[in-house]
């Protein structure tokens, strides 16, 4: 049995929700509750019983070796992957795979940013941001455009409203993707290695946007290989190993005083590759 530390924060010890996220806070209720989640591809079990609570406004970084199940876990949270056992509740809604309407409602509360941006290539930047609010939320044309412009300004791209995605740098595309997700007013944002496809000089501009989201109280769950960023921004760091939450705690402890040999080895590897 591995030395799994299930140190879910007590409600009182949880981070204080910052900024405007407090508006609709139900004190104490986690925004995300994952219980005994198991997921396999065929005979290959990838997630072997994940328990995880995330508080409103909390910033959680997920680290771990390639193949440890980080992406799979994130993708389970908005139903891109179907899991076989366990339960998952986002913002009070149970994830029900076989109910398309319930899935769409749940997904409205969960934004996701991908490693490969995945902007819609046939739409302008502005149209990318406005598409889902128009189709899903039936947001009015003028209001939708105004909101899209405000969000693009927030990610530093107000002058790109009419540009096509393929005319933008990777860092700019990723910031558009963030604006596009924010346009749905998600209660939680999932980020899966969102700077891994970027040239090193473009990483900073994206991380600054993510940091500003964290500062404004957005609940964030991010898989990242940027250890210094995780250390700076995260309230809690989760180390995944072989489909389990192997170690979990505040960044100071995880990076400063790792408890398990697996985490120590992983951090050693990361340092080696960074040097």
């Amino acid at each position, binding site marked *: 049995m591995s030395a799994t530390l299930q140190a879910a924060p007590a409600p009182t010890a949880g981070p204080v929700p910052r900024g405007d996220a407090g508006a609709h806070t139900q004190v104490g209720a986690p925004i995300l509750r994952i219980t005994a989640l198991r997921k396999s591809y065929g005979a290959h079990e990838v997630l072997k019983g994940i328990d995880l609570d995330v508080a409103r406004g909390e910033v959680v970084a997920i680290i771990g070796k390639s193949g440890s199940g980080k992406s799979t876990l994130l993708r389970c949270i908005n139903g891109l992957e179907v899991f076989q056992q366990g339960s998952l509740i986002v913002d009070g809604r149970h994830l029900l795979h076989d109910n*398309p309407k319930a899935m769409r409602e749940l*997904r409205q509360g969960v934004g996701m940013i991908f490693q490969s941006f995945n*902007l*819609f*290539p046939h739409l302008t930047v502005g149209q990318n941001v406005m*598409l889902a609010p128009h189709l899903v939320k039936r947001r009015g044309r003028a209001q939708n455009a105004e909101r899209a412009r405000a969000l693009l300004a927030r990610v530093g791209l107000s002058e790109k409203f009419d540009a096509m995605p393929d005319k933008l740098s990777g860092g700019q595309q990723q910031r558009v993707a963030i604006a*596009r*997700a924010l346009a749905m007013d998600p209660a939680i944002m999932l980020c899966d290695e969102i700077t891994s496809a970027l040239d090193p000089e473009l990483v900073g501009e994206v991380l600054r946007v993510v940091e500003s989201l964290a500062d404004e109280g957005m609940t964030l769950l991010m898989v990242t290989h940027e250890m210094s960023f995780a250390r700076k921004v995260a309230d809690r760091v989760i180390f995944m190993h072989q489909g389990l939450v192997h170690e979990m705690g505040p960044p100071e402890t995880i990076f400063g005083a790792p408890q398990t040999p697996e985490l120590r080895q992983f951090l050693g590897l990361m340092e080696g590759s960074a040097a």
Partner: protein
Amino acid sequence: MSFDFLSILAQWPLLLRGAAWTIGLTALATLFGATLAVAGAWARSQGPRPLGWLVGAYVELIRNTPFIVQLFFIFFGLPELGIRLSPGVASVCAMTINLGAYATEILRAGIEATPRGQIEAAQSLALSRTQIFLHVVLPPALKTVWPALVSQIVIVMLGSAVCSQISTEELSYATNLIQSRNFRAFEAYIVGTLGYLGLAILLRHLLNWAGPRFLFGR
């Protein structure tokens, strides 16, 4: 040997009427055929299994039989079942069904080329399956396959010459009529050929202009 093109061109009202028929048949067949193809491509790539098979059978049936047989079946065969169509309507039906089958296959290739990530992004944004197909998958797919689709539409336009066989009064019908009246076959068919050439070039330009403008953006 002397050529007499004037006696052909003197029949311009007939030629013009024929060209108008060809354009009309092609326009209707394109409209209906493309709609059929979008439905067919949807059924084959993401529709219910049995429907997908049915569409597959339709595509294979049409792609492996001559157009003229399809046309004759509709015009001469269907009346046996009490379905009696005018030459014009039968021609549009045959062309629609023909274009629909080829365009279904063309469009399906474009749809299957959609990067998985774009569909997942749309799912994450809470779009429904239908919304994803219409707003995320279809426009880039149309853009990818547009050149092939335009070629197919031109082929169907040229193929409409066969419809003169059931006395649809399109351009080749008009040409035949003129040469049977004045026995100037050489000149008549040169004029007819140039007519088709002009129409085909025009159609290509029109579609290449209209596609990006109205269907899939820049």
